[in-house]
């Protein structure tokens, strides 16, 4: 069923009894052309683009929980393409362009709101760094603006401009960045994939990867063996565990990242704002809650919950940036398991094993990448070669000495 204003009107007069479930709940077939492991944003987007752009419709997405039960529903919903390095920036810009047409393509309201992201800076060195980043963006054709302190004071009067240690002297603005409704992104891709014939198989855990003569021929699951020609892994925080089923040892470590939301407020924060003195980011949801987060907790973790000391640190950062936050009450906090890679950048690549493809290492930046990740992974699976914006995101870049290290932190996954 196509959603439109007319369909809402029709259903209103029909007592809203005619709405159909947004996707089927099929039993798995015995064999598919492509199986994607992981029914999160990236897995669902991959299946959608495989069917839509590359004509491969005999596809299954296998998810151990319910669709979108992982990080796609556990993030701070920020969408942006203000990266610096040549290996990253074209990819994230491609993603932002897909975001801009996503609602029409999916016929689903993902509530994309291009409210702009402002990255604040606090000293000369940081200003130079952000200028460099803005220039790097413009070299890739992405608009970036530098805002001085006086402009910021008019735009964001609630900031703590004269903090003794971290005065705010300016900011880098990307106007096209913003937020999207995270669950709707998963649901929109799921519905879009389902409408093109993709089987979405929920509550079905992959327990093994079966190989014959070294080549992947299917997966063992809690619903039995399912055969496939090609297998794509998009298991985010559990990538190492799924990869180990095929004997892969990956450049990943799983960590927990927390996010927070406050009680609903009247509109007060119009942009996404990031603090340069820490790694704090905040925006206001359409319901009015302030959604914010900061860095990962720092220890290896597969638990979807974090530590109170980190929560306290995040609140301190927030109140340092916006003193008025001290009077807002936090409603909820949650944690997600991040597949932190060794350089802080993702991997979309073939593996040394035939028919096995890998999509992982999203660290805590996977949400904004959802459409491009799906598109490029589908391109790789369908054509056997990297999409041109994702060709730097290789699995073997570490051993070849071509890491994409935005933070310049080295091979220390908990510092990215």
């Amino acid at each position, binding site marked *: 069923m196509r959603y439109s204003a007319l369909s809402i009107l029709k259903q209103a007069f029909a007592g809203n009894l005619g709405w159909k479930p947004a996707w089927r709940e099929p039993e798995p077939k015995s064999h598919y052309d492509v199986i994607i492991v992981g029914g999160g944003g990236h897995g669902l987007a991959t299946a959608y683009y495989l069917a839509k752009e590359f004509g491969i419709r005999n596809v299954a997405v296998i998810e151990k929980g319910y669709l979108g039960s992982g990080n796609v529903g556990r993030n701070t919903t920020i969408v942006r393409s203000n990266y610096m390095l040549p290996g990253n920036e074209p990819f994230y810009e491609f993603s932002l362009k897909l975001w801009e047409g996503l609602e029409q393509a999916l016929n689903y309201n993902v509530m994309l709101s291009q409210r702009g992201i402002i990255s604040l800076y606090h000293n000369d060195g940081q200003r130079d760094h952000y200028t460099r980043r803005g220039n790097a963006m413009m070299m890739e054709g992405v608009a970036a603006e530098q805002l001085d302190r006086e402009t910021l004071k008019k735009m964001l009067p609630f900031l703590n401009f004269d903090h003794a240690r971290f005065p705010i002297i300016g900011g880098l603005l990307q106007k096209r960045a913003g937020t999207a409704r995270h669950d709707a992104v998963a649901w929109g891709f799921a519905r879009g994939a389902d409408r093109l014939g993709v089987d979405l198989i929920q509550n079905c855990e992959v327990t093994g990867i079966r190989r014959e003569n070294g080549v992947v021929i299917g997966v063992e699951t809690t619903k039995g063996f399912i055969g496939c020609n090609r297998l794509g892994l998009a298991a985010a925080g559990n990538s190492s565990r799924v990869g*180990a089923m095929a004997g892969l*040892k990956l450049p*990943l470590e*799983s960590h927990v990242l927390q996010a927070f939301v406050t009680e609903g407020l009247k509109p007060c924060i119009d942009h996404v704002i990031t603090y340069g003195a820490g790694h704090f980011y905040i925006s206001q949801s359409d319901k009015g809650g302030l959604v914010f987060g900061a860095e990962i907790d720092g*220890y290896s*973790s597969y638990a979807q919950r974090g530590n109170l000391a980190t929560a306290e640190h995040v609140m301190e950062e927030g109140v340092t940036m916006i003193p008025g936050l001290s009077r807002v009450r936090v409603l909820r906090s949650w944690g997600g398991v991040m597949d932190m890679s060794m350089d802080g950048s993702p991997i979309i690549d073939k593996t040394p094993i035939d028919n096995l493809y890998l999509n992982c290492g999203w660290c805590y930046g996977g949400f904004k990448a959802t459409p491009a990740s799906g598109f490029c992974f589908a391109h790789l699976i369908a054509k056997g070669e990297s999409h041109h914006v994702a060709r730097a995101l290789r699995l073997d870049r570490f051993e070849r000495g071509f890491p994409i290290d935005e933070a310049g932190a080295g091979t220390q996954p908990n510092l990215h």
Partner: protein
Amino acid sequence: MASLISCPHCGTRPKEEFFIRGDANPVRPAPMATDEAWNDYVHLRVNPRGRIREHWQHVAGCRRWLVVERDNFTHEVFAVTDAAKAGEGAR
């Protein structure tokens, strides 16, 4: 993650006093070892769910490198030993 770590030298301390380096299992290869051995040591991790061994340094205490054995799913801490005693120098 447990909030308290029992340092073998300083006693029970809040975990914020410690710096966490990561997996304690990779062993530094010989300087002239193959590129594969170095890649394996520097970049690749088993990253299991469950019982793991990590290198922690008690930076706000004795500054000794420790090996913390814990569960990264339940967050239970089983043992904390001095890295030298555990038979391995820290990086």
